[in-house]
């Protein structure tokens, strides 16, 4: 009986323990198996600006980074804390106007304006949304969605902060590389920071609020206070994105409150994989350049967004990242028996 028996075996057979998501790593080969896809995404993102043809696409990438931050902020709040906040444009606007205003009126340098705008902007957003925090689900979403429109109206009707003209010029970054690597670095930092946060005990409490807020109340935890922490963290991300855009484009105007900044993160989130954090960032990095490519179609772009959304919701509700990672773990090899 010299016949050789062979059967198929999954690559991760040795390392995936029975309990979901726990790995038992025993060799460099196994570490590589887990690390390679993650590392290739990160390194790919970091060398992407170097290989892009020309300034135009580099600017598009930076804008995609902005959307990625907003998508991360949305994903964290919606799927890790259970607060559906579609006021991304409001965070953008507040962050942008604070940063731009400090530079335009007081001549502060970028090294000061961006941190101030991030911290103070997040504080303003959190305080303004504080009264709405007892609302749940779609009601909180509606209120937050309304804020950017409110801000636009106040600025235009009141003739404030340059009204429809906006504020310009705002000091830009010394060169495009600083801008691009600042935003891409922040995207990576935010992904890992939020992942870490969600693994901490307070992250578990966030998940508890998402799953069942009554049970969190019965556990002696003030859920409003915990939601405030979460909201402040999420608005920090959004306000940084706004402050970045102000300096990156050298201009601050009501366009910072545009609908796109509220809606596109949701699309990116659904496409990339709700609740995975890295997925929505990936989704934004795909959707934003795609939207630039389709600029020629004008308003038809919106139709395409809708098609993408419907296709993903219907056929891949788990999102791109979860799907790819599932397929990756299903890769098999032939082994001798």
């Amino acid at each position, binding site marked *: 009986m010299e016949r050789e028996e062979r059967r198929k075996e999954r690559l991760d057979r040795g390392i995936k323990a029975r309990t979901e998501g726990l790995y038992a790593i025993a060799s460099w080969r196994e570490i590589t198996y887990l690390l390679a896809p993650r590392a290739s995404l990160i390194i790919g993102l970091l060398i992407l600006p170097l290989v892009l043809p020309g300034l135009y696409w580099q600017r598009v990438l930076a804008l995609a980074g902005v959307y990625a931050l907003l998508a991360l902020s949305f994903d964290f709040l919606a799927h890790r804390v259970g607060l559906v906040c579609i006021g991304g444009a409001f965070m953008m606007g507040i962050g942008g106007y604070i940063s731009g205003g400090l530079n335009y009126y007081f001549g502060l340098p970028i090294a000061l304006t961006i941190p101030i705008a991030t911290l103070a902007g997040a504080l303003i957003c959190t305080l303004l949304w504080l009264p709405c925090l007892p609302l749940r689900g779609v009601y909180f979403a509606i209120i937050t969605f309304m804020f950017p429109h409110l801000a636009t109206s106040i600025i235009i009707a009141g003739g404030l902060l340059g009204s429809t003209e906006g504020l310009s010029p705002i000091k830009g970054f010394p060169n495009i590389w600083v801008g691009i690597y600042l935003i891409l670095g922040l995207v990576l930092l935010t992904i890992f920071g939020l992942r870490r946060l969600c693994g901490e*005990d307070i992250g*578990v409490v966030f998940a*508890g609020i998402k*799953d069942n807020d009554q*049970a969190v109340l*019965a*556990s002696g*935890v003030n859920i409003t206070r915990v939601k405030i922490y979460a909201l402040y963290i999420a608005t920090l991300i959004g306000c940084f994105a706004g402050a970045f855009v102000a300096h990156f484009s050298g201009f601050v105007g009501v366009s910072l409150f545009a609908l796109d900044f509220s809606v596109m993160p949701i699309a990116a989130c659904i496409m990339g994989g709700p609740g995975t954090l890295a997925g929505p960032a990936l989704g934004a990095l795909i959707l934003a350049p795609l939207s630039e490519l389709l600029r020629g179609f004008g308003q038809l772009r919106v139709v395409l967004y809708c098609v993408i959304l419907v296709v993903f919701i219907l056929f891949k509700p788990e999102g791109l990242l979860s799907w790819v990672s599932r397929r990756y773990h299903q890769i098999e090899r032939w082994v001798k028996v």
Partner: protein
Amino acid sequence: MEEQKETIIKVRNLSKSFGGVKALNNISFDLPKGEVLGVIGPNGSGKTTLVNTITGFVKPESGEVFFKNIKLTGLPPYKIADLGVARTFQVVRPFLSLRSFKNLIVPLWSPRARRFAGGRGGDRDAVAIDLLEEVGFERDAYVPYKFASALPLGYLKRLELARCLALRPEVIICDEVFSGLSMSEIASMVPLIERLQRRGVTIIMIEHRLRELFSVADKVIVLNFGEKLAEGKPDQVMQDEKVIRAYLGEEINL
């Protein structure tokens, strides 16, 4: 006006109605520290509403609840839990996306649990697993590490109880922890209640399983349509005419 020194829970003239339905009508009782109070009554008699009004999840229309002379009525639920009055939910409310032991991180993170733990609270995961083992999650079978969504009802009821225990409560209000469990599951849970009782925890048990309840209860209150029908020792209560009528209906002479 005699003052009972050891009374831990004092309920005075509690009333609550939902629309036209009187869920609670002028309920009053005292509960001495360390005793087990059973609350029984047919479906819809206001048992769960009583729990909800004591723990702050429902605001009563009138009446007050005191815990060691602190007025609980009007306080938000998390403050009541923070004072040491913990509750379970009749319809279990686990955190389904979390592993079982991570479910307990939430109460262990609460200000009350942190006061007991002292300082930064130490390794909450280890404390959580110990607590789960105490309520009967077999550590050797890795049950504490299972996702709550994968647990059967018996474990979810225990998880509810463990969530209360994590707060080191002085009063535990169990809203039908035995319902939906098999006889053997109930039999394994009764010693747990008795152990808490020996530790000096005051317990209010809402229950339909009378035999198991009467084996642990010091006193029983019978509710029917929001009214307190009877109050007293378990065997006395079951002799009460009104109670028998509420449970079995009236005798009809044809």
